[in-house]
Each structure stands twice: as C-alpha cells, then as structure tokens.
C-alpha cells in the first residue's frame, strides 16, 4: 500500500478550475517529483495535499487515513511536513528557535508553563542535530533574518524536518539557488532520502531527474504523465508538451 495517495483531486477558486483531476501515489521511502509549467497548479496541489485548502473533490489517504479536508495542523501532526516556495520563517527570532518550534516534543509542551525553552538541553540538542543535517549548526544562535538566501532555503528545509515527519513536501527547494548551492542541496536530498519519504516540486530538470524515483507531470490541473525519469525522457509527447517549455 502506498504511504501517501491522492485520487482525482479537484480544486476550484470561484469559476476557475485549478486542479481538474490530480492523482498521485507515493511509496514509502521514495522520492517523488512533480513538474510542470508555471500556473499548472503544482503549488495549489501541495496546498491541497497538506491541508491549506480543502479539495472540492477526490480523496487523500496518508498512512491509511483519509486526510482530505483536515485542518493543516491536524495533518501536520500525523507526520506530513512541508517547506514553502516563498520563504516562510519566523524572522524575528534566532535560527534555532525556528527549528525548536517545529519539534513535536516542543509542541507537546505548549501548555506546560513550568517548562523552559532555551535552557532545556534536550530541546536545544535536538534542534542542533536537525540544523547539523542542513549545515546550519554554526548559525544556530544568529537571527533568522540575518541569514543569506541559500541558508534561509536550508532553514526552510530544516524546519520541515524538525517535525520528524513521515513524508516531506518540498516546494521548489532549488528556487533562486546558484549552481553550487544546488549541488549541495542535491547532496542533502540524497542523505535525506535514507530516512524520509519526499515529494518535491522542482523546476530544475537535471536536479529532479537525478534524484526522483518517479515523476508526475502536471499540466492544466491534470497529471498528464507519471513514470520513472528514464521512461519520461523517452516519452516524446511529454518531452514536447512539458519539458520543452521548461528546459
């Protein structure tokens, strides 16, 4: 049984149909890529899958539970985590707190007034461990707002990982990164795939084809093709309609 499965997802905004019929199935431990031209509905698709919008039709199952229409915080607590394409951090505070806030053990003590935050070794150690995964441990006590663009991207991912998710949705992780930073990110994703199931939207074809096990091509709110990278390369129709526009 797949870990995460969406069937015939529909989403309309008023009269505009953004997702007409999207189905997606992700096996445990896989890296699943989503690609497609701008405006194809990729980010909307993520927003529906992670609960930001309720779908107008279709089913979403995660680890055997129906999660369609659930509130985002409920879905997040089940072990679905995501990063954002546009940076979405806690900017007034330090790097480590961004990660701490997302730790499930921190969340569990939200209403325990006797607990401490920054002098709780267990918490800071857990957060530092996550930060070390994305090479940000050195910057742990710096302001999140003071990080460079690439570091902020890495922090985005760290916050998503801090939730100790079963599945991570990454929305265009390479967006705005230079060649070197993209290579470093590819390394990171390779490491992460050992322990997480990953779904990612990606513009960078080389990046995606190198890392993904399967790729869904979304166009006009529909999945027009889904296959392994190798098969997809061979598919002339896909190459023309979607890849051609992007490459």
């Amino acid at each position, binding site marked *: 049984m797949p870990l995460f499965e969406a069937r015939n997802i529909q989403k309309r905004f008023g009269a505009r149909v953004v997702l007409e019929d999207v189905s997606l199935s992700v096996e445990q431990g896989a890296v699943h890529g989503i690609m497609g031209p701008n405006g194809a509905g990729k980010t909307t698709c993520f927003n529906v899958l992670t609960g930001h919008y309720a779908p107008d039709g279709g089913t979403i199952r995660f680890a055997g539970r129906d999660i369609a229409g659930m509130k985002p*915080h409920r879905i997040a607590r089940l072990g679905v985590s995501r990063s954002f394409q546009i940076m979405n951090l806690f900017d007034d505070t330090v790097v480590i707190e961004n990660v701490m806030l997302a730790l499930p053990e921190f969340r569990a003590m939200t209403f325990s007034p006797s607990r401490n935050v920054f002098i709780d*070794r267990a918490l800071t150690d857990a957060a530092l461990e996550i930060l070390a995964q994305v090479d940000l441990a050195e910057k742990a006590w710096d302001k999140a707002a003071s990080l460079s663009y690439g570091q902020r991207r890495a922090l985005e991912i760290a916050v998503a990982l801090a939730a100790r998710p079963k599945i991570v949705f990454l929305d265009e992780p390479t967006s705005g990164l230079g060649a070197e930073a993209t290579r470093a990110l590819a390394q990171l994703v390779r490491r992460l795939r050992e322990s997480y199931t990953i779904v990612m939207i990606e513009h960078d074809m080389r990046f995606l084809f190198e890392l993904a096990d399967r790729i869904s091509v979304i166009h006009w709110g529909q999945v027009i093709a889904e296959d392994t990278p190798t098969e997809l390369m061979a598919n002339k129709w896909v190459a023309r309609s979607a890849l051609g526009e992007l490459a």
Partner: protein
Amino acid sequence: MISLSDIPARGGSPFTPPMFVFLLALATAPFWLEAVGLYSYLGIEITIWILYAMGFNLLFGYAGLHSFGHGAYLGVGAYAFGLFQNHVGVSLWGGLLAAVLAATIAGAAVALFVAHRRGIYFALLTIAFGQVFWFCAIKLRWLTGGEDGLLGIPRPDLVIGPLRVSLQENTSLHWFSAAILGLAMLGLWRLVNAPFGRVLQAIRQNEMRARFAGYDVWRIKWLVFTLSASVAGLAGGLFAMAQESAYPDVMSLHQSGLIVMMILVGGGLVSFWGPVLGVLVYFIARDIIGGITETWLLWFGLMFVVMVMVRPEGAAGLAHVVRARFARAPVKTPVSAPAERSA
C-alpha cells in the same frame, strides 16, 4: 532591530533583578509618593493599570493581535465586582472572582468571533465588539446604572483565615493591589518564557508556518484572548474598588485606544517591561503636564504621533538602542553551550 522574540536573558529564572526593583518600588510607594509631590491614590491607579496593561500585552505584543476594544473586559470586571457587592454579598474574594469570571466569559465569547482573524480586520472586529459592551453598559440602566454607572461600591475587608484587614485606606488597598500585581507579574513572566509564550510569538511572526508546524493556531489565539480578558477583569475588579464605582467610560473606544497608546509608548512591542513604562509615562504625563495645562492630552497626543513616526518601538526600544550603543561588540555565543547564554 530588536523584538520581543529576542532570546530572554533570564528565560528560565522565575524572578529577576528588574522585577525585584519594580516590586520594591511598588511596595514602598506609599512612603515616598507624597514626598515627591504626588498623591497616594496615584499609586493604586498605576498599579491597576499596569496589571491591565501587562495582561493586554500578552495579546497585543506577544501574540501580535491588535485589539482596540480591550477596555470592555476591564469594564465588565468592574461591573461584575460592583454587582456582586450589591446583589450577592460584600466579599472581596467573591467580588474579584466574579470580576475575573465575567470578563473571562465575555472574552471567550468574543474570541469565538475574532480568533480566526488577523491584522486590521481583527482590530476592526474588536472595536465593534468593544462598542457593543460599552453600549450595553450605558443602556442596561436597570443593571448598570446607565451613564452614571454603579455608585458607592464598597471596599470589602481582606479576609485570609482568621486575619481581617480593612482596605478603606488607600495605603492598604495599594498594598493589596500591589500584591496581586506581583503575583500576576510572576505568572505572566513564567508564561511568556515557557513554551506557550514562544508559541504565541511564533503565531505573531508567521501564523501560516505555525499552523503547518502542527499548532492549533485558532485555539491558541482564542485562549490568549480569553486569558488577557481575564487579567483585564481582575484589574477591573480592583478598579471598581479603587474608584468605589464602575462606569461605562472605561469601556469606550477612547479608553481602549489609550491603553494601546501606553503599550506602544512604553515599548510593549519589544519588551516585557514596556507596559510598565508606558503606564508610568502616561500617568506621570497626565499629572505633570496636566498640572500645567488643561490641554495635556493635546500634547500627549502630539508626542505620541511624533513617536509613531520616528521611533515606533517606544521607550523600551529606545533603552535597548542606548544600551547597544554603549555596549561593546555583541558576544558570540558558543554553539555548544546554549545554557550559558541564559545565565
């Protein structure tokens, strides 16, 4: 740029030196207030408003929910205290409990309507609801005494076990209010330094991210609104005792705006102590500028407008800036030793 979210220097300790200084000043106020040309009632007034402002800043500064109708809960507390004395029985604890309960219920009910909102829309709705309470206070004449309000509210004796202390004197009421403020302050300090306080600030900084990190943002916003209404209710109960009356004026938009002004002037957006500074500045300005000219609010208002234009972080923010200028380069904290940082 400084903010409330900076790592607190003493996040773990339940009691800090500034708190000691403040509580000492508060406790000794009756002895020196008159010597510096002020009067003993001012001490009570300042104490109560600090309590109100600190509870309000939990909502306003920490959670970033900009309520412009918070006077309503102070008023509800004051009326509840008065009504309890008039209709149920003369009792200090009973009255205060009634005040807190009434304000909590009122706050919880309004929070149901406003907890899913943010920003200016939230402010608009709180104004509207604040006006509903204010209007009811004026119109429910049989209950609230209309525009004049409830008059002749007694100051019940403080009874703890066999101990009975009269609060008729302003000094004794001052100490009683100061004790309550001290307890509330310890509680609020703990709360904002516990995970809850950090989560509130996370919601202020990025509600969407907080939601995707698994926090039930709606429930937390509802809770903090209700909590801050409860503190306002407690302050309202004390206020009814101090004034020996309860009247609709404290619930007006005007008054609700003034508390926001105090928070901002004092720097509630950047410091736990902001509300304290703001209330002090306001009352001292009222008495000093007010002693010189009738139109003191004009000058206070102008001062405020200029402040919003040039230094919106307020007085506490200014203190930070001054301190930063005198301090040497910031000390880099070793990653391996986060605990030392908060020592």
